[in-house]
């Protein structure tokens, strides 16, 4: 019976998603223009690909992935900062090693031109 | 499989065989020299061409010197301490099966070692001259070294397993040497024939070793012989007969005799080596060495004697009709080895006698073959005696040495053969009963026939008018060839007397092979009577041959002759016999097997192969190259895996 609230939560989430999509389709006005086909704020052009698959520039994904990688690695710093005192010297050394390793990857990306847009 | 005697054996470490120490430590050198010689010559290749013959001879001679040193050392020790075993390393140590590579040097192997290295070295020296013009002389000497090494291992091994290694080595070396001029298809066939006939014998040897192992849990002489008394007579008879089969192969005894005549295809020194010092003596050695087994298996022992007697007559009869000097000598070898096997089949009384005849025969037969080689050398490799005649003036040294060998083999009084052959006939009569009489009479008869055909060889070659081919210019061989002949001739004359003097050889061998046998047995004929009878028969045979071939003209082309002559010329149809009894049924068997194999087995196999191939082709199509189908197959697989696990629990 402990599971019931979780099931409720899932149900509500699913219901909300369905409701949003259906409600939007039913109530919203339908006026198409070029701007509507643009990617929202960022991202690559969702132009129709030629049959058989074409190629699109990888730069955007590269930068996005680098961001995610370093972003997630920085996340590890938060718990360490919170528990800095209780982790003591060992924690400090480990974290320095961790940051150094991350920095090696950063240096590699930087030196090999991974951060240059063109 | 149980080894009921194994515990008994472990304790049965006899005191008479001491671990080698002091000078006896050198035993391994006997083998090392010829092995090293063969290795250097074979691996060195053409680089060693220039000195190959010298190196080979030196290796053999060095081995002989070691043998002499060891012999003097052994003779200097007390009788009980003469036999030694030198353990080199452990070859096999698996569960209960333990085989040491060890060399047993006792009085018996000492006699063989001296014969092999001594006569072997003389043959090496002779070959320097004989093979002087052969482009492959180095290879020849390598094989000779290999042959000597294998034979030494055969007589020195302290374990039937080690003997078997030497046994196979001898087979290999003889194959290489008989087929040395293998470009001639007939010679290659002869080598193959020798090899195959020997393999038949080898089967006997290997089965005997396996049987020994299952019975005694060991294969070394000391433990097998000590435990032999504990085994049933049936087993011992089986082992004995298998060993006899092995001996028949190597020693060219009935029914495996047919290869010996064809083995003349090899260069003549090889014939001398095979017939005198090595190879054919291996069988006799094996029987004498296994004496403790044969003594406990009287049936097997009797079969040995019968085989010997039959071969003795068989070889002699073939010898009567051969016009080829080497084939006549080969037939005589078969016959003389028959004498030895006969003696070895007479039990402890005969072992020493067999070895005695083996040693004297080693000298005079080597001398005869080298003499024959010398004659061939002079006559452009002709071997047909009808083309010889009157060579005594052209080749005096050869004539004298060959003549002395001849006198020795027919048993001319006081020469080597006289002492040893007489002893065999005497021992045969001594056996008593129907058995003794039959064997004795056969041996006596054989002596007469021997005298006849050897006189024939002598007369046709050296006496009478010259029947040479037009282009023949006989000349005496160079000193390097005649010197060994002279030495061997001296041995032919004196060795028998020396060894017989006061029963010297018998005393020497007694610790290994047992008593003289003079005190046992039945006195049927007194020794003097036997000797006189033998001399009478021999004289009769020689005289008849002289009347036939010395007085009358020998036609250059062989006359048709009586059916008996034709039969003897054709080796008493031994090949036809083999063909009819062994080859044809064998061929029918293999043909039917091949048929069954093609239709039945292959059909099934090919069908199966086609089925698998077809399956493969179909399965291959599952490999579409699309990731989506691979992923689907993985998903299916995962479902199967989980399903299978859950199914088991249910």
């Amino acid at each position, binding site marked *: 019976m402990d599971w019931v609230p979780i099931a409720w939560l899932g149900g509500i989430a699913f219901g909300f998603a369905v409701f949003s999509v259906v409600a939007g389709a039913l109530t919203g006005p339908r006026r198409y223009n070029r701007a509507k086909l643009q990617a929202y704020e960022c991202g690559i052009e969702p132009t129709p690909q030629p049959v058989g698959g074409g*190629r699109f520039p*990888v730069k955007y994904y590269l930068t996005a992935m680098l961001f995610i990688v370093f972003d997630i690695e920085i996340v590890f710093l938060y718990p360490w900062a919170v*528990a800095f*005192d*209780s*982790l*003591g*010297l*060992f*924690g400090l050394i480990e974290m320095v090693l961790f940051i150094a*390793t991350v920095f*090696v*990857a950063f*240096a*590699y990306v*930087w*030196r*090999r031109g991974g951060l240059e847009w063109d | 499989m149980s080894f009921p005697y194994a515990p008994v054996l472990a304790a049965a470490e006899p005191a008479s065989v001491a671990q080698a120490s002091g000078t006896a430590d050198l035993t391994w050198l006997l083998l090392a020299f010829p092995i090293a010689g063969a290795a250097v010559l074979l691996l060195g290749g053409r680089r060693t061409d220039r000195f190959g013959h010298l190196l080979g001879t030196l290796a053999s001679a060095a081995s002989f010197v070691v043998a002499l040193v060891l012999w003097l050392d052994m003779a200097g020790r007390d009788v009980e301490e003469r036999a030694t075993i030198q353990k080199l390393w452990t070859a096999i140590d698996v569960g209960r099966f333990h085989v040491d590579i060890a060399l047993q040097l006792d009085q018996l192997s000492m006699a063989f070692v001296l014969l092999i290295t001594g006569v072997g070295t003389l043959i090496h020296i002779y070959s320097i001259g004989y093979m002087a013009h052969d482009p492959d002389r180095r290879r020849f000497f390598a094989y000779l070294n290999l042959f000597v090494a294998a034979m030494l291992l055969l007589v020195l091994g302290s374990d039937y397993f080690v003997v078997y290694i030497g046994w196979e080595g001898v087979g290999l070396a003889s194959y290489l040497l008989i087929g040395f001029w293998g470009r001639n298809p007939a010679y290659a066939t002869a080598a193959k024939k020798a090899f195959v006939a020997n393999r038949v014998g080898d089967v006997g040897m290997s089965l005997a070793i396996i049987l020994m192992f299952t019975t005694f849990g060991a294969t070394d002489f000391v433990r097998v012989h000590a435990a032999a008394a504990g085994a049933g007579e049936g087993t011992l008879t089986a082992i004995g007969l298998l060993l006899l089969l092995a001996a028949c192969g190597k020693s060219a005894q009935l029914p495996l005799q047919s290869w010996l005549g064809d083995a003349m295809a090899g260069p003549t020194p090889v014939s001398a080596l095979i017939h005198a010092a090595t190879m054919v003596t291996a069988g006799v050695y094996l029987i004498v060495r296994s004496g403790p087994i044969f003594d406990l298996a009287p049936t097997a022992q009797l079969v040995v004697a019968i085989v010997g007697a039959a071969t003795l007559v068989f070889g002699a009869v073939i010898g009567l009709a051969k016009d080829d000097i080497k084939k006549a000598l080969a037939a005589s070898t078969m016959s003389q080895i028959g004498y030895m096997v006969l003696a070895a089949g007479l039990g402890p009384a005969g072992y020493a006698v067999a070895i005695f005849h083996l040693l004297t025969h080693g000298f005079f037969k080597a001398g005869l073959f080298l003499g024959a080689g010398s004659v061939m050398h002079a006559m452009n490799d002709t071997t047909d005696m009808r083309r010889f005649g009157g060579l005594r003036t052209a080749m005096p040294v050869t004539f004298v040495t060959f003549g002395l060998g001849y006198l020795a083999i027919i048993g001319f009084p006081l020469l080597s053969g006289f002492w040893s052959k007489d002893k065999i006939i005497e021992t045969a009569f001594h056996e008593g009963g129907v058995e003794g009489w039959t064997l004795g009479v056969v041996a006596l008869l054989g002596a007469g026939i021997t005298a006849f055909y050897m006189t024939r060889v002598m007369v046709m070659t050296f006496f009478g008018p010259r029947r040479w081919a037009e282009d023949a210019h006989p000349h005496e061989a160079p000193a390097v060839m005649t010197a060994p002949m002279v030495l061997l001739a001296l041995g032919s004359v004196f060795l028998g007397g020396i060894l017989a003097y006061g029963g010297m050889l018998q005393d020497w061998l007694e610790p290994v092979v047992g008593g003289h046998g003079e005190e046992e047995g039945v006195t049927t004929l007194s020794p003097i009577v036997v000797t006189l009878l033998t001399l009478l028969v021999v004289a009769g045979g020689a005289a008849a041959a002289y009347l036939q071939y010395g007085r009358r003209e020998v036609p250059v082309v062989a006359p048709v002759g009586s059916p008996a002559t034709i039969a003897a010329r054709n080796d008493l149809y031994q090949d036809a016999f083999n063909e009819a009894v062994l080859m044809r049924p064998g061929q029918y068997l293999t043909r039917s097997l091949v048929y069954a194999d093609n239709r039945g087995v292959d059909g099934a196999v090919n069908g199966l*192969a086609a089925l*698998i*191939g077809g*399956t*493969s*082709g179909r*399965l*291959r199509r*599952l*490999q579409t*190259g699309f*990731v989506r*189908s*691979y*992923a689907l*197959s*993985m998903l*299916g*697989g*995962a479902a*199967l*895996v*989980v399903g*299978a*696990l*859950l199914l*088991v*629990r249910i």
Partner: protein
Amino acid sequence: MTVAAVVSAASVPAASVSAAAADSIPAPHIEYGVLSPLFVVFGAAVLGVLVEAFAPRAARWAVQVGLTVLGLVGAFVAVVLVASSDDWKGARAVVAEGAVTVDGPTLFLQGTILLLAFVAVLLLAERRLDPGPSGAFAAQASTVPGSPGEREATRAGAAQTEVFPLTLFAVGGMLLFPAANDLLVAFVALEVLSLPLYLLCGLARRRRLLSQEAAMKYFLLGAFSSAFFLYGIALLYGYAGSIRLSEIADAATQAQGSDVLLLSGVGLVTVGLLFKAGAAPFHAWTPDVYQGAPTAVTAFMAACTKVAAFGALLRIYYVAFGGLKWEWRPLMWGVAILTMLVGAVISLTQQDVKRMLAYSSIAHAGFVLVGVLAADDAGLRGVLFYLLAYGFATIGAFAVVTMVRDPAGEATHLSQWAGLGRRSPLVAGAFAIFLLSFAGIPLTSGFMSKYAVFSAALDGGASPVVVVAVLASVVAAFFYVRVIVLMFFSEPAADGPTVAVPSILTTVALALGVTVTLVLGVIPQPVLDLAGDAAAFVR
């Protein structure tokens, strides 16, 4: 520790320090010495990345090769040192707070992986067979095949040196995989070894599309299988409340909770492991990837990945699922039989040498599984020996493949190999030795390894599987011998490939392969003894 010591020594009032004591998280105890092989390899890999970043282009290749070889040799020395010290024995084998176990099998497998990786690196560094600064690898992998960018990169003489750090990272993952004592560490190790391999597969200079396709397939399917593995871990955690192997084993013996959860977890973890090992029905990627990847990378994957995957499989099955023997046995029987049959039967109709070797590796995965089935120390010993022997033979075989070339690169179609034995008896002879070893002919290592696993499985009561294994060996032997016949007894084609003369690197790799294959076939006892001594998992 120091904090606690200071606290107790000062013996200040308990109330005032209780808060500090509760707050201080004890530092984990890491056995650096026992784990040193891992540190050496990963350290060398990180250094390799720095070299990529800062070393001048001209010096990079030499530095990277030297660094890689040094790293592998250093790690091997560390393994030997650890193995010869007593630090890892007994209870102390479980290290790093229980995350890693360094016991006999771990050390044997790590040593095996390092040796094989060393030989594979020799092949990776070969530059004479395919002349150019980057050897068999694309100068710049990110350029489009056939594009101006690719031509430019090639012209600029860019050397592909990232191969070496990638290889080191993969080796590091492989070292950790069979040592992992909990499932999460195993998963991390699996990913660490897999990701560099996906990249390496796509780096071929020739037939780049095939190579990229292989990398793509391997990545997609690998990710798919990782998902299964991870889901399995989740289910097992749900069952046992722990990801520690020994605790899962304890939970399974006490039979607490739902069997469905446990068995589903076992099944899904099995899927992930069998995928990496290349066993049917999860083998489908093997031929495509082996064929498309650069041959040196294929050699590395075929040898080292297999060792690591089977090492982990053995540990997880023997330690965590040991009590479930009766549940997983029928499944493994089926998988082993299917794998052997699929590998052996399909290899019959292959026309490409690399694909043929791929199917042969599938069949061998099945043979190794036969040893796993024994589920005792004899089986473990057999598997350890098998992996070592097979690894060397397979690297040697792929080394030969790199040497048989025509103007378009490696000539891998079997018809091109006709009569190779007449042109280059030495190389063809070496290949024949490897094939004979694969076929399990006596006097080669293949015979001894097959004998070891089959006899262990027989004793373990898996006789039907052994019968199938022997039959599959016969089918496979047919194909191997046919290749030998093709090489030695058929007429060479007029315009057939030639055997290129490699540099000392490939020569050494090939010679090592032949030597180990023959030596292990003639005197296997020392290595068998070593594997036997190592063959006991610490729980």
